[in-house]
């Protein structure tokens, strides 16, 4: 028999804003040392899990190896990043620059969406504009003629309410700061409808979710003597959502 899911099956995961750089040229990578020039005033923070990828056909002998790494340092004003193989580990260094990018570019992006923290609720609405294409001159019958419509652009909006806790390491703090981040590339919400965990991490095959790149439009902080502190975040899609509503 089918089971109605309660809200407790859901979850909210997030990739922070300013953590997606997909246009890195060869000149961004060092021939010695570990300094990668990713760009100024992005949203990377120390120990962020990021994925370094070179374009197809590129040579990486002696270069910082592609793959999942962690941000070791990032200086906003210079745009220089170093990465490490483990969180808090020593910085990876290159003995040669990567080669043969051709027309492609390298990328450094936040590896995977992570749990936001103490999320009370989230909501997401998808809408579609309608275009009236009613014509006159229809054949008269016993019923009134109906208007005709075709679908227009899709749009959406969402919100999430997150409790503020004494844990300052959760991504909920990033959510608030990211609202006023000038560069929001990479901000992505992963809205779980039914989150199945395997060994403590989401099993995205069995889970059901909606992943959507977003712009963050507001953060409303509520602090009063009577209620738990909470923050309401509003967002809307910056590109089409990806629906994974299948359990397999």
């Amino acid at each position, binding site marked *: *028999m*089918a*089971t*109605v*899911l*309660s809200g*407790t*099956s859901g979850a909210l995961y997030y990739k922070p804003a300013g953590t997606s750089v997909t246009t890195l040229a060869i000149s961004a990578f060092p021939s010695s040392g570990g300094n990668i020039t990713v760009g100024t005033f992005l949203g990377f923070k120390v120990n962020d899990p990021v994925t370094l990828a070179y374009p197809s056909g590129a040579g990486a002998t002696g270069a910082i190896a592609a793959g999942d790494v962690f941000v070791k340092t990032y200086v906003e004003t210079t745009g220089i990043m170093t990465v490490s193989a483990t969180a808090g580990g020593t910085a990876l260094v290159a003995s040669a620059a990567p080669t043969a990018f051709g027309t492609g570019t390298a990328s450094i992006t936040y590896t995977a969406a992570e749990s936001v923290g103490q999320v009370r609720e989230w909501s997401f609405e998808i809408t579609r504009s309608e275009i009236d294409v009613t014509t006159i001159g229809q054949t008269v019958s016993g019923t009134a003629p109906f208007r005709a419509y075709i679908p227009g652009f899709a749009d959406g909006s969402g919100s999430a309410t997150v409790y503020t806790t004494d844990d300052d390491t959760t991504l909920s703090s990033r959510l608030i700061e990211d609202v006023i981040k000038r560069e929001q590339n990479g901000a992505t919400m992963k809205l779980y409808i*039914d*989150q*199945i*965990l*395997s060994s*403590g991490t989401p*099993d995205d095959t*069995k889970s059901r979710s909606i992943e959507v790149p977003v712009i963050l439009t507001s953060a409303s902080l509520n602090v009063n003597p009577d209620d738990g502190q909470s923050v309401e975040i509003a967002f809307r899609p910056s590109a089409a959502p990806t629906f994974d509503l299948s359990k397999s």
Partner: protein
Amino acid sequence: MNYQGIRAEFESDLHTAYGALSPAVPVYFDNTFNTVSDAETEFIHVNLQFGLTTETTLTTQSDYIRGTIVIRAYTEKGKGPARNQTLIDTAVTTLRALSNQAKTSSGIYIRIGALNGPSFGTETGATESRLALIPFFISRIDTSFVAQVIS
């Protein structure tokens, strides 16, 4: 629907937790006789009630299991609340741990609501009343829960 499995999730964890105390504290679940001797000074009562367990649709019904659980801790009267609150804290810890278990692809998934209590009745008619003619000091916690039998 698996009422017994859901009940077992609560009862087995509570039984284990109170059994692990030193000394172990007896726990009495629904429809079990409280055979505690007069010399026994502390024990736990657990009452689990299912509420609405389905949702109706136009053509059929779907599972949606909800209920409440009430736990009472009985301790000696006239000795202050400390021991009683210590005992009821074990129930709180157990329920919270149960509610923190991850949802996996099989088994029974439980989430509790906000915990209410421990409360100590003040009216003479209240079961937990400190004024009632019961030779125990009684505290009570209760909470709602939702459960899903994952298949």
